[in-house]
């Protein structure tokens, strides 16, 4: 009888713990500043594991009111996230540059092109293509940076051409 009582109490305790976990609902406001405030509160109250989803929701909200100023807003949000320890500095850089910079983070690498990039050329290009669509969202649809997006698109084409030539030359030298 005593054992049953202990089990019942433990189960009730665990159930109460479960119901106290944060719900981590995305920001409800359609205003970017308010949405960021809501996201920040949720993130520091235990929802940091859902950072990706929050970032995506914020981008969606920003798409509803695109303007060049949004770049700064997102940068400040990411710097805040890094300062609060929700993201490492490298993660924050990656989140920002993937969406709002012309340069491709997919091209990060410490080894030379002949030995590392060429054997994985298709993967590099595939990752770049995916990143280009994120840049379309960040640069074009969120920040109205048409020139930046156009340059990123051109850069993608140039990298594709130069890698094709370089990798052919590397293969011929073996």
């Amino acid at each position: 009888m005593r054992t049953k009582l202990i089990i019942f109490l433990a189960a009730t305790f665990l159930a109460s713990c479960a119901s106290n976990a944060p719900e981590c609902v995305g920001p409800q406001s359609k205003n970017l500043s308010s949405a960021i405030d809501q996201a920040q509160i949720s993130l520091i109250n235990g929802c940091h594991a859902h950072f990706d989803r929050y970032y995506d929701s914020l981008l969606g909200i920003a798409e509803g009111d695109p303007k060049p100023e949004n770049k700064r807003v997102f940068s400040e949000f990411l710097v805040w996230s890094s300062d609060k320890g929700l993201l490492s500095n490298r993660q924050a850089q990656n989140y920002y540059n993937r969406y709002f910079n012309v340069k491709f983070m997919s091209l990060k690498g410490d080894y030379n092109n002949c030995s590392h990039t060429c054997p994985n050329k298709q993967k590099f290009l595939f990752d770049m293509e995916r990143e280009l669509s994120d840049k379309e969202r960040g640069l074009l649809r969120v920040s109205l940076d048409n020139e930046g997006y156009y340059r990123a698109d051109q850069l993608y084409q140039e990298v594709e051409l130069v890698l094709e030539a370089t990798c052919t030359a590397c293969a011929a030298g073996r």
Partner: protein
Amino acid sequence: MRNAPQRSQATVQKRTPGRTLYIVCLTVLFLAFAAVATQDAHANSPTIRLFPTTVVEDLKQTGNVARDMETGLQEIIGRLDQQQELYNESKCDGAENDSGCQRLARQIGATYLEMLTIMEERLPDMEHTVNNTRLSLEKGLRNELGRKMTPWTLQETLIGKSTSAATQQSAPTLRGRSGMRLSERFKQYYQLVATSGAKGDQSLAVLASDIYLDMEETSLLIQRTRQEIARATLMEQLNQSFGIITPEMIEVVGGVKSILFGDMDGTALVAGPPPGSIEEAYRSPLEQ
């Protein structure tokens, strides 16, 4: 003793022009040194060596060889076109047993043989110069972009130090590898390479890649064409006795025309920027 400060003041006043001259000289020396140092730093800044003088000369030479070949073939291809038109207008297609049609077919075959002979004569020169250019570029691309650069440094080279509109305009547009005469193409390459000193490394990397891939393709085509010529010549000599126009003949002539004189349908269009306002750039502290 009372005069001592006056004397010293006078000495100072006397010395002033000398000191000014000294300062001026020092400034001039400093400026000269700074200018030399800047020039030196500029000269020592890492630049990619993709176009040695030999490549520039090879491009010029290839252009000349291509022009000679075009001149020789233009008249023959024109004649072939006329004969083909006459053959079609005479409704010879399907009437191969007609003696008039057979005569026309033999004439076309003879002109075709003439074209193959000229190509056989000129192609080795062409192949030689194209291969020289290709090999020089290949070495440069492999060493400079393949072995000395990571994907990130390659990207930085392509994007350039400055992403201003002026820099972007100086970059060559990707032309694709068809749509113009072969000699014109090499002439353009030569001009682009010869005047590329004023442009940044980003232009050179794209230009070298574009030319190299073109050379690679051209070299392969020449190689295949040379292999085919001997076979096609023998076939056509046999066909001469029957007066037959083979679809292969028409295909080969079409191929030669598109290589030498350009394929107008294949002109690559470069998309324009999407419409919208251009705002001033914001630089995030996170930007790399």
